[in-house]
């Protein structure tokens, strides 16, 4: 029985990581119909930017700050202006394909210009573990979990309680009407991209000490976040965190109790079931079809 608790808690820890990545993914979809296939690589890159700055001699904290700023500039502003803006009016699919190409470009660039080897990454959480319900969980995982929850609460508060947040929601739900009532829609959309970039930079900082910095570490993370976002509910930020936790736990339990060879199949089957029988996701709101 303690084994089960172990697995669930470990699953929640991994799930928190998936949730962090899924949140930004959901935000981008909600506000600008962008399906970002490069989201996993977005999480991989900030760590390398931070390592690059650190290799120039900067102390770690400075490297983190500069790396985060660079990430926001590249993954938020540049991404939107250079790739998304020109393509948005042409529909969802060409942009989605462009992000697929972008993910390849990012992966290969890191491999060529930095290294094909995995790099260690210092952790901002202290090492060591703590005992919860009799199973030992690393402080790093606790840190990830705590930050993930804080991010979601913070985001929700921002969206619901601040004027900017409500303007963002308006811009997402109905851009035409929002424009009419004076919401600066373009600026709001840019804000979403900046928030996404900040979130992935945070995720990168938290996750890379555990996953190690490698050019390919975005692949599994991206796919897991994708599934988490859909399972949880593509149109609700809350859905991302529920989806992430669920996928993390399901994945661990599947590995232990079903089969390690088919471990990846269980979240996928869950995805198919959810899409067929509850397409709005576990926590999502049902979308009306516009005629």
């Amino acid at each position, binding site marked *: 029985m303690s084994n089960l608790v172990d697995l669930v808690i470990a699953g929640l820890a991994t799930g928190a990581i998936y949730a962090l990545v899924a949140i930004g993914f959901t935000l981008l979809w909600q506000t600008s119909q962008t399906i970002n296939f490069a989201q996993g690589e977005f999480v991989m890159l900030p760590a390398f930017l931070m390592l690059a700055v650190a290799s120039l001699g900067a102390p770690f904290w400075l490297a983190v700050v500069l790396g985060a700023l660079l990430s926001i500039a590249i993954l938020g502003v540049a991404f939107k202006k250079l790739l998304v803006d020109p393509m948005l009016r042409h529909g969802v699919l060409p942009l989605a394909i462009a992000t697929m190409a972008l993910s390849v470009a990012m992966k290969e660039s890191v491999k060529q210009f930095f290294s*094909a080897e995995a790099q260690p990454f210092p952790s901002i959480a202290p090492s060591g573990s703590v005992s919860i319900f009799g199973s030992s969980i690393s402080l790093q995982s606790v840190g990830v979990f705590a930050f993930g929850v804080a991010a979601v609460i913070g985001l929700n508060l921002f969206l619901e309680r601040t004027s900017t947040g409500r303007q963002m929601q308006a811009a997402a739900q109905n851009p035409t009407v929002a424009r009419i009532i004076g919401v600066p829609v373009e600026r709001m959309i840019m804000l979403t991209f900046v928030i996404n970039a900040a979130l992935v930079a945070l995720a990168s900082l938290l996750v890379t000490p555990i996953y190690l910095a490698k050019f390919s570490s975005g692949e599994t993370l991206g796919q897991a976040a994708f599934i988490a976002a859909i399972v949880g509910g593509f149109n609700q930020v809350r859905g991302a965190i529920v989806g992430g936790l669920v996928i993390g736990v399901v994945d661990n339990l599947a590995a*232990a109790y079903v089969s390690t060879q088919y471990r990846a199949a269980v979240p996928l089957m869950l995805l198919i079931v959810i899409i067929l029988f509850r397409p709005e996701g576990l926590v999502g709101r049902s979308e009306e079809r516009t005629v």
Partner: protein
Amino acid sequence: MKSVLAAGAALLAAAFAAPAFAQDIELADVAELSGGGATVGTNWKNGIDLAVEEINAAGGILGHRIVVTHADSQSNPGVARAQVQKALDSNPYVLLGPGYSGSVKVTAPLAAEAGVAQIMGGEAAELTRMGDKFLFRTSFGQQSSMPKVAKYMAEDMKAKNVAIVWVNNDFGKGGRDTITKEFDKRGVKVAADISTEAGQADFAADVAKVKASDADAAFVYLNEEESARILKEFKRQGATLPLMGETTLVGQKVIELAGDAANGARAHVGLTTDAPVESVRAFRNRFVKKYNYVPDHNGIKGYLAVYMVKAATEKMGKVDPKGVADALHGLTIKAADQPGLLMDVTFDENGDIDREGFLVEVENGKQVIKQILPKLQ
């Protein structure tokens, strides 16, 4: 438009079929430069490039310069086959690579048919059992290393029930199949058979499974990063059972990434930059100087491959692509004569390697040699 492209393809094919300078020795390398095996292939390539640079600086092979071309197999046996086909079309002196056993299996018949010697990095047991007279290893095949591992686990570790954790690709599965047979021969039971994915980051469930089984030791056969992660996970879950692996479990990189979680891990190691051998240390320093990182065993393999070509050609006394394979069969080379080969080595009739090996344990963040397994000849 299509006809222009087709004509372009024709031109391209013609360009590659044209012979290079008659003086140079052309080596064609097909390696995993992208895809799942990118780390393996990139290390292999870097080792080759370093060797070529060294040999050319020292005057080449019998006075001939070496020129090497690298092609990307994308970690995909089908693409490897096509790239080897293309390489063979331009009549190279020797074919180098691939590293992935699956890709080797598919490309070996092509090289054999063309009569070109192939020096590769694959470790699957079956590769040297296909009766291919042109295929050569640069590291122990699983059929050589796994019996030694099984012997150590059964006799020294006194293990009766072993959990096997392996990476689900042809490297990991080959190792798992071979060691399962060896355990069977020695009456050791397999308590758990756990497959993991390449690139996997979370090993909580796998370690939990090992703990839940009644294993008294675990054989861990993963790639480097995953080895580091699972070592950390074993430590985190407080698993105390002895861990045994192969070269990938105790590499310098793994120790660096896993920290003190690596202490206590043991492995049979064929090639390691940590070997207490002067020439190996020197090689490592040269590699680090050129590339700024410590190579894994694939880097050593690539380096050796080129020096094997040099040794065989020097034995023949002439540059003859048709004679390389015969020259290598049965050849014993002492490191003193050919320092590029790092350690004394003998190649047998099947292309297998006979060389000193080590049983290593990690103590205080360093590899410590516990046993030296001598060369058979």
